[in-house]
């Protein structure tokens, strides 16, 4: 069998999931006994192709079209590649852009699609492991088809390393410009401002457990008492209780403080992606099974509204009434 892995780049650089789809693609090809092909679409394809030529890669196909991601170009290029090389599996990253083309690729090729895989077993019928209900349960999804499309969760597979001896070749495809209905006008970095949470040594970070905006002074008092910086998970920013520059996670900032105190944060995968590199992680949460506990070094399983006031007092702060 042949596996086709699709790489991803932005503003002149390959992104990490590119090397993860290579690892996952190699694993899948090994389990079925086959070749791993890698696709590089757009941007500086020659440099990217060289960087993707890692151990276990048999062929790299490049499509030199456009500087940045465009889902119509990706879809057309991948569909054409799939028709030419007939890969049994197409492995794509479960990123924002991955989810912008993978369903269209699967649709155009009439292949079943399974997204956000965290593991798989391809020795028999393809079995994909996924999470459900925010990571509280795992499921096995069986795909009984000869040709499949799969997206894999970022940072679940290690990045491919080493140097390969793949054949790098330009893949000849005519992109139908009339079918390209979206135009990228530019990029903007958001979340700047007065505070840079990536610089903090200690972060007091809050999540849904804080319940109401009126409870913010409590955690602000804790941050003050500790000389720490306040950050948060996504829902707090979505609600407008804290500005975007305080958000830790996949779409926010990636932080690596000495100590990260997660208060009332369940630990959704998108959040964990932004803070798992912290030296010490402390979780305060009522749910002993919350995903945050899987990466916490220390934990208090209790109500934050009971624990946080005590903690403020320990450091001589004033508990807001």
């Amino acid at each position, binding site marked *: 069998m042949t596996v086709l892995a699709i790489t991803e780049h*932005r503003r002149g650089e390959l*992104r990490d999931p590119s090397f993860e789809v290579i690892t996952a693609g190699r694993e899948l090809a090994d389990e079925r006994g086959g070749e791993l092909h890698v696709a590089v679409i757009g941007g500086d394809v020659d440099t990217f192709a060289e960087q993707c030529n890692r151990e276990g890669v048999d062929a790299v196909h490049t499509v030199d079209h456009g500087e940045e991601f465009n889902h119509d170009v990706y879809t057309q290029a991948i569909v054409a590649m799939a028709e030419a090389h007939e890969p049994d599996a197409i492995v794509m990253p479960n990123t*924002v852009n991955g*989810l*912008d083309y*993978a*369903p269209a690729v*699967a*649709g155009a090729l009439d292949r*079943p*699609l*399974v*997204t956000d895989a965290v593991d798989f077993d391809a020795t028999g019928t393809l079995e994909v492991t996924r*999470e*459900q*209900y*925010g990571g*509280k*349960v795992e*499921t*096995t*999804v*069986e*795909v*009984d088809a000869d040709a499949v499309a799969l997206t894999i969760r970022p940072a679940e597979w290690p990045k491919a390393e080493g140097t390969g001896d793949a054949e790098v070749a330009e893949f000849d495809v005519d992109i139908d410009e009339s079918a390209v*209905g*979206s*135009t*990228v*006008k530019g*990029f*903007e*970095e*958001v979340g700047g401002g007065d505070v840079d949470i990536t610089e903090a*040594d*200690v972060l007091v970070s809050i999540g849904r457990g804080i319940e109401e905006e009126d409870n913010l002074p409590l955690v602000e008092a804790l941050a003050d008492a*500790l*000389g720490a910086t306040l950050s948060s998970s996504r829902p707090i*920013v*979505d609600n407008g209780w804290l500005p975007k520059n305080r*958000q830790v996670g*996949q*779409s926010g900032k990636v932080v690596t403080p000495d*100590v990260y105190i997660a208060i009332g944060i369940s630990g959704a995968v998108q959040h964990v992606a932004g803070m798992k590199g912290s030296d*010490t992680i*402390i979780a305060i949460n009522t*749910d002993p099974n*919350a995903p945050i*506990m899987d990466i916490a070094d*220390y*934990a*208090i*399983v*209790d*109500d934050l509204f009971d*624990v946080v*006031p*005590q903690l403020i*007092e*320990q450091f001589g702060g004033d508990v807001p009434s």
Partner: protein
Amino acid sequence: MKVLVTVKEVAQVDDEFEIDGLDVDDRYLDYDLNEWDDYAVEEAVQLSETHDDIEVVTVTIGPERSEETIRMALAKGADRAIRIWDDTLADTEFLDVSTKANLLAAVVEEEDPDLVLSGVQADDDSFGATGVALADRVGFQWAAVVNQLEQDVEANVSNVRRELEGGIEELTEIDGPAVLTIQTGINEPRYASLRGIRQAQRKPLDVQSLDDLGFDDSVVESPVDLTSMYEPESESDAVVWEGSPEETAGELAEFLREQGVVEG
């Protein structure tokens, strides 16, 4: 102009729960409108409030139970609702992306909307693929993970921001008709007013079977099947401080002082 919003009722799981077969036991599930869809409904309703003659229609694949959730979307300002369901769907354990896209595509063809809004993902199975798959089926343009929308109603062009990873936003122009998948935080979803709730009772809620949509039962057949559900083994090796809040706070305070990361 017509805006179609795909909505789904999803379950939240209690902290303590049991699994029964291929799903969490119903006793531990609380049903509500999918969070992402709540933002999609709000975005559509805001469009209808700022422009004349915009009709907002919601479409759901779901059992009778979900009508309460659908009524809440109507109470927030949607004009009417379509619910796809019948015995065949009720007997289907797992609806894969392709099936859902096919069912919704039939409604899109019937309704002929100018814009379709969908949540980025459903909070239960988090496939995150239905919106784009639907666009592919009906030949619409699309954009995934939209956190800002400026709609040129006359030209039917959507100027969107797509929320990429790492605090980067992509500014993109999309020629309609399009399917946009809506990210949380794009707006502030309203609470339904009492008046809205009363009005919602009188708004049309049309139930369509597979047959009504022109399908036979084979539409639910799929090579993708859910075969098991289980609680993942905890990977936690956290040291759990135990005791009263005073005691646990004391342990934490001592730890922080020992680490030398805080003063006092």
